[in-house]
């Protein structure tokens, strides 16, 4: 399909721990289309950031297997020199923590300018400054000319995040990866930043991968949602389907554990157990099964694969068919 911007095929990103490689992203297949916001949801340690870093080629010592096709070219095993021509130009990334993503010793204007300079050598300095100020205006920074000469520590969290966004969109990328772009921000700023990302999507028709653990943000932003658990996608669907008809036990548990401002629940749902460490991850069988011990063993598949429930809605493993919350049978839980 020509609409496809990014195609990830059987991606496996492994990290070395004491002479063994353990896959943090395990056999993941995913596509991102143009003009689409794909949200990737999951808890810390599920591999969502490892996935983002794999796409951008930012892992230092990880072993990456499989293919990441950006407009048909495989960027998974591309040498850094070639990749550098794409990164920052065709692919932009908004990092989670704006304070660590910025150089504390460099004026923010210069930092944004650097991105422009690296990909457009012919640009003169005045042009560059103009462009940076234009970008700062675009991301809604008041007094852009003044902010140009400020250092990151002089800016508030929301402003810093805007600077990081300005940097990511400086070269109008076609693929934008936003790794928890609003986690560090206040709600009012968050809604501004989300509006900004929405605008950018409309302006540039970019494909956006939005990595987050905030389901509210997903509901607001996403067109499609992929839920990740322990390195795998456990459920993928368009946003309406996922919220109205979640299937996988993990998705349902996550949705139930959010304190919701529009409803009152007395107790939040807690997923039993913990996300296993990378080394202890069960590589066989349903990876979520240890956390739903009340579900019959036979309900799980031996080698869980994604099943298409309805067109475009995929669920891993068969255990969703028999899954119930423990208090559901007594009519205690809300759906």
């Amino acid at each position, binding site marked *: 399909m020509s609409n496809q911007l990014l195609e990830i095929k059987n991606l496996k990103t492994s990290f070395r721990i004491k002479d063994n490689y353990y896959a943090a992203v395990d056999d993941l297949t995913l596509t991102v289309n143009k003009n689409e916001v794909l949200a990737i949801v999951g*808890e810390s340690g599920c591999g969502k950031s490892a996935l983002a870093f794999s796409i951008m080629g930012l892992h230092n010592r990880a072993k990456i297997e499989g293919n990441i096709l950006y407009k048909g070219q495989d960027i998974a095993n591309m040498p850094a020199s070639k990749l550098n021509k794409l990164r920052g130009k065709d692919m932009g990334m908004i990092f989670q923590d704006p304070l660590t993503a910025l150089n504390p010793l460099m004026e923010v204007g210069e930092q944004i300018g650097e991105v422009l300079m690296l990909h457009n050598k012919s640009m003169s300095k005045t042009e560059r400054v103009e462009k940076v100020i234009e970008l700062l205006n675009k991301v809604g920074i008041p007094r852009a000319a003044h902010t140009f000469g400020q250092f990151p520590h002089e800016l508030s969290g929301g402003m810093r995040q805007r600077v990081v966004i300005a940097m990511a969109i400086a070269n109008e990328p076609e693929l934008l990866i936003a790794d928890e772009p609003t986690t560090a921000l206040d709600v*009012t700023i968050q809604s501004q930043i989300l509006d900004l990302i929405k605008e950018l999507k409309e302006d540039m028709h970019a494909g956006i991968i939005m990595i987050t653990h905030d389901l509210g943000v997903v509901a607001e932003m996403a067109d499609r949602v992929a839920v990740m658990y322990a390195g795998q996608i456990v459920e993928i669907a368009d946003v309406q389907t996922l919220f109205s008809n979640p299937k996988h036990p993990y998705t349902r548990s996550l949705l139930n554990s*959010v*304190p*919701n*401002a529009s409803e009152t629940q007395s107790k939040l749902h807690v997923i039993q157990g913990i996300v296993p460490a990378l080394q202890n991850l069960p590589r066989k069988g349903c990876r979520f099964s240890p956390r739903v011990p009340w579900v019959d063993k036979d309900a799980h598949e031996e080698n869980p694969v994604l099943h298409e429930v309805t067109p475009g809605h995929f669920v891993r493993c068969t255990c969703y068919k028999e899954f119930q919350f423990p208090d559901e049978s007594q009519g205690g839980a809300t759906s």
Partner: protein
Amino acid sequence: MTFLQVEDLKVHFPIKGGIFGRTVGHIKAVDGVSFSLEKGKTYGLVGESGSGKTTTGRAIIGLNNITSGKVAYNGHDITNIKKAKLDIRKDIQMIFQDPYSSLNPKKRVLDIIAEPLRNFEKLSKQEEKKRVQELLELVGLSPESILKYPHEFSGGQRQRIGIARAIALKPKLIIADEPVSALDVSVQAQVLNFMQEIQKELDLTYLFISHDLGVIKHMCDHIGIMYKGRYVEEGTTANIFDNPQHIYTKRLVAAIPDIDPNKREAQAQFRQAVKEEYEQSYNDYFDEEGLAYKLQPISETHSVALPEKG
């Protein structure tokens, strides 16, 4: 008698300038805040970063110097915590926001949690170890982890170490400064449920500082909303969420992402409407300096910062 009474609390930070480093002005981080906490209840302090909510919490426990105003705990004046008669530090504890920076990376979990015990209680090594293990179990960590270092734990586990440290001395009041902001939803759910459980068990009072209105609504009985160091609205959870009166509160409530994607359009329109109202009536709700007015009671439990009717 109110459990904790804060009256007209002001915390101003000096701005130093000039070659002699003289004070050239003040940042009014907290500018005349009053509220009271009831025992066993949770009071939520909401606001954006920079609104002074954290400073308020820190001032109560004595981590920030109070410029003026009064803090009374159980009838005792603790405005100057160093001069306070009874040892308040034992009764009031704090859970910090960032579980990554609030634990000393060079100390073992045992030493981290035992530190308050060592300050206030004389325990033998054995007793101390036993207490720490009990506390760890209480917060759902394995007692074997006492010899580990903070970096060996996940964010949620670290936050629970922070909580274990805070409850080590069986405090009566816990100031929780964004205790779950750094955590995943399912871990957040664990920590919140856990905080509610120990609240019942130990009859704790919480001052819960957060910018996450979903969490605040879930946890709190009373809510105060701060903006630029002042209160804009105060009331019960129902007052604030069902009947917000101040334009700032309305905007804050509108900014919460809705979990239903079908309401996306409606929510966006609603937000736009609130935003327009905010811009239009800004001058009615804030004075010339952009600060909130004094609180006026509009019902028994609900007060809003409105200009005095003249």
